[in-house]
């Protein structure tokens, strides 16, 4: 396992040998990285199959009394599987994606890219707090350099700074959380933390700090500010990695601390995580609805999906605290499955936007359209991803969202009347979110790929090259495979729930059938559904062909009173978002310029901002600014004053000695 991770680092290092040779780095190193990704996925699977026999090792690295510990158990295995599979697809795509002359030299980019991959694998392998933090920071830094790879643009530098700031604040919280978790024994291995005696109060403190730290990385809503800035700033394969893979390390960390290191759970924690998750989900969906930049839209959609995953985790904590391990396992399985799904479809969509970006140089939805004709391959793959993320059967997004909803339906079993009242509300929010997500995806796909091109330059957009096609197809295949045979992924998740909760949900004994808890309540078979869809479509096709055969009459269709249509007549992205803007107006800060009726060249402009920016982030920024100004008074600029400081310090220290 470690050899493979080292392999990634090694690939990054050899990229430095010829940093400016795009051919060498892109065609040679990135595909090799993809192969290593497959190896990682394979080993993750082995770890999952091994079940309760984790492999642990102490590395001869690190500080003298703090060696690095690594451990491979089912939880790490699951996330390695996720990273390996999705990472392989992204790497193959990246091999074809990077062009010369775009920001950082390819060799450096390859170095950061592979360090990023390796550090993510190390995060899930680490078995002591020290190594975990080292890997975690390595991940933050390498991804920072990837985000600012086009550092000549000021807004990208700004996004990168914001990202780095949030990452450091999150890491600080994690550091404190580990400090609490060691429980006064000053041993930082996870093994020691598992046995550390913590009072409920300190356990709660550790949990809240971990929630803050991992929440900042995952983009839970009050801490999401960096995500819609950083993801669009990065090159598309990097956006895909950050959204599909890196956010999952936060999910991993949350699970590791909550279910593995802390051995008590309180239902209040569950309610908190549930509320944050649902809020993030609905918030992300609403904002994705009004955003008109395609990558920003996907970034908000990531917030929504992370919200769904945390909703599942919250439910699992809630059930576990109420001693209902079976339902907890169900909720956790749904969260894990959704993590896996999100890694596939979100990566796929980000990569597709990369293709669109390369082909058209446009990111705003308002300038795109009709690309299905010029980029059929990308359009088909993006369609798969869009359907998956919209939660339509028989694709993978449906299964996890459906399971999550099923888990909600078991909440009446909880013995707290208060929660029983609140949770149906949560289920309603979940349903609303999923519906909104579908709406957003219709907008995303419809505006980019369907209709007529909004600009003449789009006519000669080129399709993906063959390496990119392989990457896209690999991810799309993953979406379909998990959707049709979710049992495979669910059994992998089962190994994790077995480790964390001591309980595995038996979804069904048959491979093609999924039934949470009992088949009486609900069951689903992707394979049967797919077969059904194919049959219906096939029969319809045959019937229509048979009935209509020979009776075609080519003629000018009724033009509905419009003798001609231009691309200006199509619904725009702004138009699509208008209902959402209208309904959820309180969530936004809007600036709108409406044309006057007599204007001969009417112009409509709208600018939508996140209200949390003004309400939460800016006051904090101002407070920090004031504080630093107050401290800045110390820096008078006069040498005599500075000397006086050191003199007084010296005197004070000497008096202290006395």
């Amino acid at each position: 396992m470690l050899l493979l991770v080292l392999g990634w680092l090694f690939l990054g290092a050899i990229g430095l040998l010829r940093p400016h040779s795009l051919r060498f780095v892109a065609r040679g190193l990135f595909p090799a990285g993809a192969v290593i990704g497959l190896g990682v996925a394979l080993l993750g699977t082995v770890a999952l199959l091994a079940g309760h026999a984790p492999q642990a090792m102490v590395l001869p690295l690190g500080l003298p009394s703090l060696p690095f510990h690594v451990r491979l158990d089912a939880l790490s295995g699951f996330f390695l599987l996720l990273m390996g599979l999705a990472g392989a697809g992204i790497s193959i795509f990246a091999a074809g994606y990077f062009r010369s002359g775009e920001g950082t030299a390819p060799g450096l980019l390859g170095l950061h890219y592979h360090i990023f991959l390796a550090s993510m694998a190390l995060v899930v392998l680490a078995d002591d707090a020290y190594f975990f933090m080292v890997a975690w920071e390595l991940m933050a830094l390498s991804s920072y350099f990837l985000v600012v790879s086009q550092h000549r643009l000021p807004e990208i530098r700004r996004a990168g700074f914001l990202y780095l700031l949030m990452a450091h604040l999150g890491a600080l919280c994690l550091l404190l959380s580990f400090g609490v978790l060691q429980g006064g024994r000053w041993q930082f291995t996870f093994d020691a933390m598992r046995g550390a005696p913590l009072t409920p109060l300190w356990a709660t403190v550790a949990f809240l700090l971990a929630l803050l730290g991992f929440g900042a990385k995952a983009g839970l809503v009050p801490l999401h500010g960096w995500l819609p800035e950083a993801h669009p700033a990065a090159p598309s394969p990097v956006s895909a990695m950050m959204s599909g893979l890196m956010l999952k390390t936060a999910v991993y960390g949350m699970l590791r601390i909550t279910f593995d290191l802390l051995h008590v759970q309180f239902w209040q924690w569950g309610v908190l995580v549930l509320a944050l998750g649902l809020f993030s989900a609905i918030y992300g969906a609403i904002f994705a609805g009004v955003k008109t930049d395609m990558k920003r839209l996907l970034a908000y959609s990531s917030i929504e999906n992370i919200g769904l995953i945390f909703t599942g985790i919250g439910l699992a904590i809630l059930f576990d605290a109420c001693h209902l391990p079976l339902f907890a396992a169900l909720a956790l399985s749904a969260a894990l499955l959704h993590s896996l799904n999100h890694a596939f479809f979100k990566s796929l969509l980000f990569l597709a936007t990369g293709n669109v970006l390369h082909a058209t140089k446009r990111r705003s939805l308002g300038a795109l359209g009709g690309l299905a004709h010029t980029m059929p391959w990308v359009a088909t793959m993006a369609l798969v991803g869009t359907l998956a993320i919209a939660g339509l059967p028989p694709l993978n997004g449906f299964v996890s969202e459906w399971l999550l909803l099923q888990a909600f339906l078991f909440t009446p079993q909880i013995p707290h009347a208060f929660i029983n009242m609140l949770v149906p509300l949560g289920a309603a929010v979940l349903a609303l979110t999923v519906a909104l997500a579908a709406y957003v995806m219709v907008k995303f796909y419809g505006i980019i790929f369907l209709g007529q091109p909004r600009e003449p330059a789009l006519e000669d957009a080129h399709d993906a090259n063959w390496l990119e096609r392989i990457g896209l197809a690999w991810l799309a295949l993953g979406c379909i495979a998990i959707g049709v045979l979710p049992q495979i992924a669910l059994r992998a998740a089962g190994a994790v729930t077995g480790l964390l909760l001591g309980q595995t949900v038996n979804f069904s004994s048959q491979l093609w059938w999924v039934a949470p808890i009992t088949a009486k309540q609900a069951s689903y078979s992707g394979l049967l559904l797919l077969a059904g869809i194919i049959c219906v479509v096939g029969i319809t096709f045959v019937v229509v062909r048979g009935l209509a055969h020979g009776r075609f009459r080519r003629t000018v269709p009724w033009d509905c009173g419009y003798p001609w249509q231009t691309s200006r007549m199509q619904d725009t992205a702004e138009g699509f978002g208008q209902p959402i803007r209208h309904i959820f107006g309180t969530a936004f800060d809007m600036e709108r310029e409406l044309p006057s009726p007599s204007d001969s060249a009417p112009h409509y402009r709208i600018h939508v901002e996140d209200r949390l920016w003004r309400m939460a982030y800016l006051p904090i920024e101002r407070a920090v600014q004031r504080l630093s100004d107050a401290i800045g008074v110390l820096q008078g600029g006069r040498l005599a004053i500075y000397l006086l400081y050191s003199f007084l310090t010296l005197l004070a220290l000497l008096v202290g000695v006395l």
Partner: protein
Amino acid sequence: MPHSNHWIVPSLNLLASILLLISFAMLSRRRTQRLITLFAWQGLVLFTSTCLVAYSSGQKEMYYSAGLTLMLKVIALPWILHRLIQRLGAQWDSELLVNIPTTMLVGLVLVIFAFGLAQPISRMATTITRNTIGIALAVIFLAFLMMITRRKAVTQVIGFLAMENGLFFAATSATYGMPMVIELGIALDLLVGFFILGIFFFQIREQFDSLDLSHLEALKEE
């Protein structure tokens, strides 16, 4: 103690008080040239006292360190400083941040403070020179005070060097000097630091056409 000659301790005390006197004199001088002369005198006193301590304790190594003091602090550095201020045209220095009487009063308070501070330390020390620890501390404080109250860059460096003198004296009086290796290292550091500061002088003058440190306030970020 090999040579517990009764005249050594009083003469050491005398030398220590001369050192303190020179420190006060430095505090009250305005001209840079006078300061350099005083600095050289300070080095000479230091050399003498080190020789005396070496003689009384019978430690051969201390003669080396005394020789080092003589070469570096009495001959080399004052000479270089003289050359430097002539090149820079900075012989005349009359700019003080605090007027001289006030500085002297503050200096008095510092000396009292230093003696109070030195009491517990001298009780622990076993050397014959333990009474002079307070004076050594006072010399350090006074040199620091000089650095604070002067505005020209050259005087700051002289203050810095005088502070090192105080430290050296403290070391000889408390523990019969530091190990030779450390002393050599410090001497080298001093020399290097001095050269770097000398280069800075020229840079500062080139930038601001003056060695007045108040110009450095312009460097502060607004």
